[in-house]
């Protein structure tokens, strides 16, 4: 545990704004974060149909610079980071030598020799330490920039219009998983077309002292479009519906990317060796020949909600475990992600249920994601 996690919770630059909005706050990875402002279901539906505004300043930014920044990241991460073009971003992972996942990351290439790595709040210190250690021998600097940024996300179908009213940046030219420096509401920002909701949207990295000003400008610009402030509770149901993994749930140090069904993020064809390559090659073979448990979606036939840690059952036997579960506002039914034995992983497999506090409730096995937006 790092000192930041055991001490009193940290507050983002938007703390006073959240309190004035009457947010219910929650401790998340050592940060005091908004859980919801009103009804989390209304917030969820706003992001699916209009737009939502999130404070994500707890996310951990790490800057990597120098002539060998790309080489360092190719060595330290499983992706082909040197191949990412300036102005683009990549979803990737950092693994242990044994292939276990340390964190999932988004890496933005800001310049030829400058990258920003965004880690989960709960893993930011671990990622920082690993990158620092793995940087030995490389002509590159790893910088802790967690305090250098506030992060505000605007997500939902109305988000391009809302943002366009506040910036001259070429949003039409900004593709999914791209980022460019610009000015939003007079504030310098890295504008990224990324998110964790399954909707179109943007993430704006700004200096903490500009966070309140930007939040207020976005709130005002979004007034007529139905933009509402959104907490972490709906962020979780949004990402769950979109089938996106969450570290600590679908991803852990005990699992490789192949175990999590995300083997595609591991690039064996890159030039350099990388941490975990040997173990990951073996994991890839194992996953192809004799898959262990497989990550699937479950949709309830009843109304009781599966929660992380509940057993998945079939024929009276435990065949898996729920990793995330919630009532789905979009489907109107409880949904879950779970690791189940390969024999029961095919969509439509009959007789699968979840042990909900002693009762075996029937569940349908479905392919992920539960929700995909119409483009």
């Amino acid at each position, binding site marked *: 545990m790092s000192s930041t996690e055991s001490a009193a919770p940290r507050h983002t630059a938007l703390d006073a704004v959240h309190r004035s909005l009457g947010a219910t706050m929650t401790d998340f990875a050592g940060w005091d974060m908004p859980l919801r402002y009103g009804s989390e*279901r209304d917030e969820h539906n706003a992001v699916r149909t209009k737009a939502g505004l999130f404070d994500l300043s707890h996310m951990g930014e790490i800057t990597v610079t120098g002539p060998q920044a790309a080489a360092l990241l190719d060595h330290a991460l499983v992706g082909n980071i040197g191949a990412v073009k300036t102005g683009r971003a990549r979803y990737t992972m950092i693994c242990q030598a044994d292939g276990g996942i340390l964190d999932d990351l988004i890496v933005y290439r800001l310049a030829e020799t400058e990258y920003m790595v965004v880690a989960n709040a709960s893993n930011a210190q671990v990622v920082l330490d690993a990158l620092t250690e793995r940087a030995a021998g490389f002509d590159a600097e790893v910088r802790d920039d967690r305090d250098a940024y506030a992060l505000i996300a605007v997500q939902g179908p109305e988000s391009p219009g809302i943002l366009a009213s506040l910036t001259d940046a070429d949003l039409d030219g900004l593709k999914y998983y791209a980022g460019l420096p610009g000015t939003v509401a007079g504030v310098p920002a890295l504008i990224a077309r990324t998110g964790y909701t399954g909707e179109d949207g943007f993430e704006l990295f700004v200096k903490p002292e500009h966070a309140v000003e930007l939040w207020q400008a976005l709130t005002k610009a979004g007034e007529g479009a139905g933009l509402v402030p959104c907490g972490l*509770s709906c962020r979780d149901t949004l990402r769950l519906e979109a089938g996106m993994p969450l570290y600590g749930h679908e991803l852990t140090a005990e699992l490789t990317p192949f175990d999590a069904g995300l083997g595609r993020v591991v690039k064996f064809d890159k030039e350099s060796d990388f941490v975990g390559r040997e173990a990951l090659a073996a994991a890839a073979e194992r996953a192809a020949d004799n898959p262990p448990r497989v990550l699937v979606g479950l949709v309830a036939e009843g109304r009781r909600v599966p929660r992380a840690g509940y057993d998945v059952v079939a024929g009276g036997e435990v065949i898996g475990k729920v990793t995330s579960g919630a*009532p789905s506002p979009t489907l109107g039914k409880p949904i879950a992600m779970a690791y189940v034995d390969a024999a029961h992983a095919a969509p439509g497999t009959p007789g699968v249920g979840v042990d909900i506090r002693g009762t075996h409730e029937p569940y349908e096995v479905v392919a992920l994601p539960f929700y995909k937006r119409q483009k």
Partner: protein
Amino acid sequence: MSNPQQLRYSKEHEWLSAAEDGVATVGITEHAANALGDVVFVELPQVGATVTAGETCGELESTKSVSDLYSPVTGEVTEVNEDVVADPSLVNSAPFEGGWLFKVRVAEEPADLLSADEYTEFSAG
């Protein structure tokens, strides 16, 4: 948020109405509903079942968690709110009114139920 004066309250955040012909109504407080977030499923005791003060008699599922429902008194359940079973969001929108949960013929009442003012102080702490 204000807790109606005519009700009494348990430390498990249930409210209890004054009994009419020996039958009292039970629900959860606005404080509890706010803490739960959007309630999506309620499981209530069956009509005719005996509930015991301070013991679980059902459950409430919200987006984030599942919570036990405790009975504030001992007695026989005479009616459950089918409207709230069909639309659990009533617990959030009208916890003291349309979101009531069940009615119970009171056999025994614990001595430590709180007044509205006492509960307000209890739930603030």
